[in-house]
């Protein structure tokens, strides 16, 4: 297994990177770049196991790098369960792993995973007698809980700001930014809430291609248009946490870096994108198995390659583009595994010598503390006919739109086998809730193009809801055509 290494960065890379700083990891000094996510610094420093899982004490490691899973939780400066992929590295940070005895690295409780090879049913554990059931309780209570309670001295509570605003857009991805641009151009005041420190959503991915341009270029262009609009206020690092619909006014709760916001919008556009769920195969949670967008961000964005060669599984356009982006950066691919027998490949992949395994899927991942190889099987078969060695895996999984915030508000959310749970909208982005619109991947958009279009329409429809204007109506009609 190759050691983790840092790649050269191109000048148009939007991800932050500062000077080298020292921090403490499990009591040892370690180096990283100020401002990069702590998880990235640790992966660059060769850390493989970030912690242990709650029940079977399986090794855990970053999977999504977008703050959506629980693979990267660490204890940081006396606070438990810190998402290290969402925490910018600072000099002097004290970082420790959680769970495991004697530690997370080598954890004797892992034997539980082997003893209960099939599964451990905690519902019926030791229920044959009252005394045994109470013993089970003692054991379970010992094992329960993620980190130890916080030891950091609490600061004063965050100040809270309540604001009435005409419009709030949640999510500064492709759809949300376009919605905000439309609203801003129509002269409305709008607050855009973005959980990440970097606006752009998928536009930050190297695999994102929009009408021939790279996502990074499209992002720069869109953000400069946005900053020219005086009514648009973009709040970064400010995750929306909830939408309350039990009062006469909608309330959007968000946690900013130094204040808590309770926004009361007349109209709300939800453009929260989608999550990367776990791909389903045996030992899918092995460290080194990542979602495609996580790998994109880690390798192409932050320029950190924790293992090589890379195996890519999936045949969505973005996944193939990701493979092409890796090839472009001179990274060795262990294979490109696709369900479909003959996917249409990007140009770089057609010329590069990439081992292609068509009509296959991953059956299981193998490796002790980090993925070392994967076993592949043809569609419909349960025995592998191919084993590929690799140092990193990006595996696609069916879509999982981020429907929750719209659901809080009471918007109708439906399930579609191919698309997941999505916020139901009409052609203009209206949901079942009169004040809420939705656009982009959370509303079922399948591609970047579609997300852009949905964002524009929802922005215009939202502006029209605030104030009727014939010009806007015409523009909306044109966009729908």
């Amino acid at each position, binding site marked *: 297994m190759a050691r983790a290494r840092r790649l050269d960065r191109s000048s148009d890379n939007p991800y932050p990177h500062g000077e080298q700083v020292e921090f403490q990891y499990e009591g040892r000094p370690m180096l990283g770049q100020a401002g990069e996510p702590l998880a990235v610094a640790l992966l660059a420093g060769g850390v493989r196991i970030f912690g242990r899982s709650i029940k079977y004490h399986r090794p855990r490691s970053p999977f999504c790098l977008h703050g959506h899973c629980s693979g990267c939780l660490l204890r940081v400066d006396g606070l438990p369960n810190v998402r290290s992929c969402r925490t910018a590295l600072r000099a002097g940070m004290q970082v420790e792993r959680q769970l495991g005895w004697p530690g997370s690295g080598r954890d004797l409780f892992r034997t539980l995973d082997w003893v209960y090879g099939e599964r451990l049913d905690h*519902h019926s554990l030791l229920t044959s007698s009252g005394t045994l059931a109470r013993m089970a*309780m003692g054991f379970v209570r010992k094992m329960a809980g*993620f980190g130890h309670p*916080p030891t950091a001295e609490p600061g004063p509570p965050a100040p*809270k700001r309540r604001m009435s605003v005409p419009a709030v857009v949640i999510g500064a991805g492709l759809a949300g930014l376009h919605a905000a641009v439309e609203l801003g151009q129509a002269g409305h005041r709008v607050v855009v809430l973005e959980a990440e420190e970097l606006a752009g959503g998928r536009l930050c991915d190297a695999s994102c291609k929009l009408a021939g341009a790279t996502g990074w270029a499209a992002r720069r262009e869109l953000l400069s248009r946005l900053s020219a609009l005086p009514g648009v206020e973009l709040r970064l690092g400010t995750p929306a946490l909830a939408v*309350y619909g039990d009062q006469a006014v909608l309330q959007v709760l968000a946690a900013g870096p130094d204040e808590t916001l309770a926004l009361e919008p007349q109209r709300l556009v939800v453009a929260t994108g989608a999550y990367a769920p776990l791909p389903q195969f045996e030992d899918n949670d092995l460290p080194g198995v990542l979602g495609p967008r996580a790998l994109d961000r880690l390798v192409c964005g932050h320029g950190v390659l924790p293992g090589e060669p890379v195996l890519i599984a999936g045949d969505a356009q973005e996944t193939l583009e990701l493979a092409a982006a890796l090839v472009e950066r001179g990274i060795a691919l262990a294979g490109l595994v696709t369900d479909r027998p003959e996917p249409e490949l990007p140009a770089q992949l057609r010329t590069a010598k990439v081992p292609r395994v068509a009509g296959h899927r991953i059956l299981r991942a193998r490796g002790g503390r980090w993925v070392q190889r994967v076993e592949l099987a043809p569609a419909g078969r349960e025995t592998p006919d191919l084993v590929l060695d690799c140092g990193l895996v990006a595996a696609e999984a069916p879509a999982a739109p981020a429907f929750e915030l719209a659901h809080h508000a009471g918007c109708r959310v439906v399930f579609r086998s191919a698309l997941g749970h999505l916020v139901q909208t009409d052609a203009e982005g209206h949901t079942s809730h009169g004040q809420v619109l939705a656009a982009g991947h959370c509303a079922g958009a399948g591609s970047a193009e579609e997300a852009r279009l949905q964002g524009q329409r929802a922005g215009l429809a939202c502006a029209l809801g605030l104030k009727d204007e014939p010009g806007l109506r015409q523009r909306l009609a044109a966009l729908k055509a």
Partner: protein
Amino acid sequence: MRDRADLVIIGGGVVGLSLAYHLARLGFTDVVVLEQGYLCFGASGRNGGGVRQQWSTEENIQLMKESVQMFRRLSSETGYNVWFRQGGYLFLARDAASAQGLEANVKLQNRCGVPTRLISPAEAQRVVPGLAPAGIQVCAYNPTDGVLFPFPAVWGMARAATQLGVAVETFTRVTAIEARGRQIVKVVTDRGAIATNRVVNAAGAWSVQVARLLGVELPNKPYRHEILISEPLKPFLDPMVSDLSDGTYFSQTMRGEICGGVSDPAEPSSMETRSSLRFLERMCRAMVRVVPTLANVRVMRQWAGFYDETPDGQPILGRVDEVDGFIQLHGFGGHGMMLAPIVGKLAAEWILRKADHALFQRYDLGRFKRGEVQKETFSIG
């Protein structure tokens, strides 16, 4: 679904299921339980799981003592771990009236054999690390109270009853009850009808609607009651802590989450089930006041359920004047989880005439007309 039954129980919450379970244990299994949603849909799947013997009337103390013993056995009886952990209950009194109330309660509880003690705020800090003693006059601590996990209690009773021969029908809503004169003849659901002469109304916050199907008016009112849990942390809090000054309560679940709620005098009666920002903020302020170091703990989820409240804070149990064979088991407010085992058992014995329990006369619906009400003063949340 069966088309006839000796007894139909409307409501698959912990109360209805406890009755079904105890009827079945007594050999009476021609019973159908009808639940409009999934098991745990009602208050029984949304509560804090608190079980305490610290009450202000001898009757409630004795009932809860029984329930505690029954919960200790429930896991092995049903094969589902209910994780009943006796980490105690700690009440905090911040004013003279509450302090006197605690003093009187403790004497009564001790007479009933419950080992509650009055302790100083300094002593309480040993029970609850990080407790802020400022402003607390005195505390009452009973180490044998506890908390459990509500879901498996519900599933366990449902499965045990089913295995003994009772039918539990989920996603089955009662839409009408037909009667001829004073006699019930049929329960109609959205999945078909069941011929029966006896119906138990164990529909919790919906019991008013169910009673109305037979023209019976109940004085109960539903109130939204909200609750939240934190991220799961390693065990550090043993008891349920309850601040009497504002009705705050919280404890640590078996999974390590801090779980609790707070009463809200401004909450109107309604069937609202959405969450509110108001609750989130009131609860967070209340928790930090009691244990300031909780400020750094993360809130993970909040949700809401109903308190099914009666005018005197006591449940409504027993017959009604208007219709024969229509038995009421509802109005459990914020303590139906802890009362369910014993009330289900006593009700089963009473219905099958194995024993007569005064409870079912004293707490019948008629008491409001007769003016015989005795208020339970020690309800929280």
